[in-house]
């Protein structure tokens, strides 16, 4: 282990750099790319709570993005409720839904859980594409919902520039990382890891594995839905394909898996490495080589799974720790 000062210093530097970045990056395009990068880092970190720590493979998280986006948007369009409040309303709904999915599926083998989450997410998307009204709520089917940019300002969660969005998602990311860190050191975190790796042994020691997984699922879906509202307010237009498509679910899972599931740094690392690939290949090769970034994602995913199944964070962490040890003059004893 490294001394705590040597571990904290780089963190502080990274945080400072992240907060100062918009001063340097003034291009709207690059800021947009950075916002999406943080958004995905946030989404994958939320996914990681259940996909990483609980050792199952959820492949339908887009459903929660969609629930969050639609709830806050419907509330603000039809009832004038601030998206900030709608954000948490959506998150609560998502958490309940997450528990409902998890309740019967966590007892099953891994593949069933993955299948159930896919079917569930696709089912919700199909429903939203077919429904114009859900009771008093306007959904508009495949046309989706447009948010008219009338009132800007913090209260309305709507801004003319990209900088405020940047800071909001940055704070959200920092918060979710802190939460993950806290959970990973809490009893719940240990229960999750134990239940994910050795369910029978954990059960025998009196750990309620199913309940720990449900708690993780509830938190994960809650947090994912918050990002859905952010997405809606950032793009100001949502439709079932844009917030609930299978591709979103898979991209979240892929990024986390490549970065390293079950670790705190893994999902962020994955987003840092993969989001630029996806954005730049879309910008430069979008017309000539469609889908290139998904091929790259797939190839990287397969290679990582074959050679580095715990994700890229593992070799990088080792490398980093060695470098830090060398920097501190080799005074540290070998770990």
């Amino acid at each position, binding site marked *: 282990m490294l001394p705590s000062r040597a571990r904290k210093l780089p963190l502080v530097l990274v945080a400072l750099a992240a907060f100062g970045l918009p001063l340097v990056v003034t291009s709207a395009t690059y800021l947009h790319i950075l916002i999406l990068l943080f958004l995905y880092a946030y989404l994958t970190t939320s996914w990681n709570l259940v996909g990483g720590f609980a*050792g*199952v*493979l959820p*492949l339908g998280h887009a459903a929660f993005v969609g629930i969050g986006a639609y709830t806050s948007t419907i509330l603000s369009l039809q009832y004038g409720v601030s998206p900030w409040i709608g954000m948490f309303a959506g998150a609560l709904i998502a958490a309940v839904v997450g528990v409902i999915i998890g309740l*019967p*599926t966590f007892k*099953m*083998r*891994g*593949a*069933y859980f*993955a*299948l*159930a989450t*896919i*079917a*569930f997410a*696709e*089912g919700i998307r*199909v*429903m939203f*594409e*077919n429904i114009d009204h859900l009771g008093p709520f306007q959904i508009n089917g495949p046309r989706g919902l447009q948010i008219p940019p009338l009132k800007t300002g913090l209260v309305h969660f709507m801004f003319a520039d990209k900088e405020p969005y940047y800071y909001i998602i940055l704070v959200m990311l920092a918060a979710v990382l802190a939460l993950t860190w806290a959970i990973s050191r809490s009893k719940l975190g240990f229960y999750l890891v134990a239940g994910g790796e050795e369910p029978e042994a954990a059960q025998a020691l009196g750990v309620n594995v199913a309940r720990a997984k449900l708690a993780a699922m509830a938190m994960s879906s809650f947090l994912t839905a918050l990002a859905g509202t952010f997405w809606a307010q950032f793009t100001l237009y949502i439709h079932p394909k844009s917030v609930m498509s*299978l591709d979103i679910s*898979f991209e979240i*899972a*892929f990024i986390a*898996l490549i970065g390293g599931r079950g670790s705190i740094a893994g999902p962020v690392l994955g987003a840092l490495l993969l989001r630029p690939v996806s954005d730049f290949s879309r910008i430069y090769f979008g017309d000539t*080589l*469609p*889908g*290139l970034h*998904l*091929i790259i*994602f*797939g*190839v990287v*995913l*397969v290679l990582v*799974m*074959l050679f580095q*199944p715990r994700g890229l964070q593992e070799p990088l962490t080792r490398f980093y720790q060695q470098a830090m040890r060398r920097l501190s003059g080799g005074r540290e004893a070998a770990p």
Partner: protein
Amino acid sequence: MLFIIEDTLNGILMGAIYGLAALGLTVIFGVLKVINFAHGSLLMVGMYVAYWAVLLTGVHPYLSLIVVVPVMFVFGYLLQDILIKPIFKSEKEVREPITVIIVTTGVWYILDNLALLIFGPQYRNIQDNPLRGKMLEIGEMMVSVPKLWGFFTALATALLIYLFLQKTRMGRAVRATSLDRDAASLQGINQYRIYNIAFGLGTAVAGVAGVTLVPFYNIFPTVGVLFDIKCFIIVVLGGLGSIGGALLGGMIIGVIESVGPQFMTATWTEAIVYALFLAFLFLKPSGLFGVKYDW
């Protein structure tokens, strides 16, 4: 009343083709105990192989089986040998490595987007083939001829696989591995070779399903996704690993899709299928004919 019978009939025919596609998935699951998430993409590859074989030679669509089956078998064999075998070897103690799901999902994305890159997003179909648009009149009912061909192909394929598993020495080795891989290894069966063969077989069956679709279905890079999710649903419905269950599950889905639109918007039937799937997952995850041990 008549049109409901007509729809049911056509639903059963189409459903048998779904079942045929799911058959490959169930064969792979039966032996490897993992779900191949790339199955729909393998079907898509089979469709493109058949499409080009028919287009370049101008033969009857079903003659393309001569090319499709061996090509797909080798493709599946190598896929398992190169990408999936290493995982089984490194995670020996895990009965159902989640890593395999992840790798096959990666393969799904690679194949779908490679097809998009190479063939473009356009819908292709074979306009002048002897089966396209043909209808058979039974009294006042119309039955699609290409789907009828698909139906009988599905039954024949299921029968052939059944015979292979029951009557041949290799089939017995496959069944032994599927029951208990360690015990089978102790009897001198090379379990990894059996995995390769099972995966090749499943992929070849996906190819056969592709051939039955080519005469009347559109071919496009993401066509596999439609079948992927349907195949998952079918195998869970019928019971993972069960050959008859795959066919029956397919027919159930086919009938829902074909009769449903008489009573509601066509897209709603899709939601009904998902709901049925979730209901089965929650209430009877072993499906109609599945073994309880397998879930």
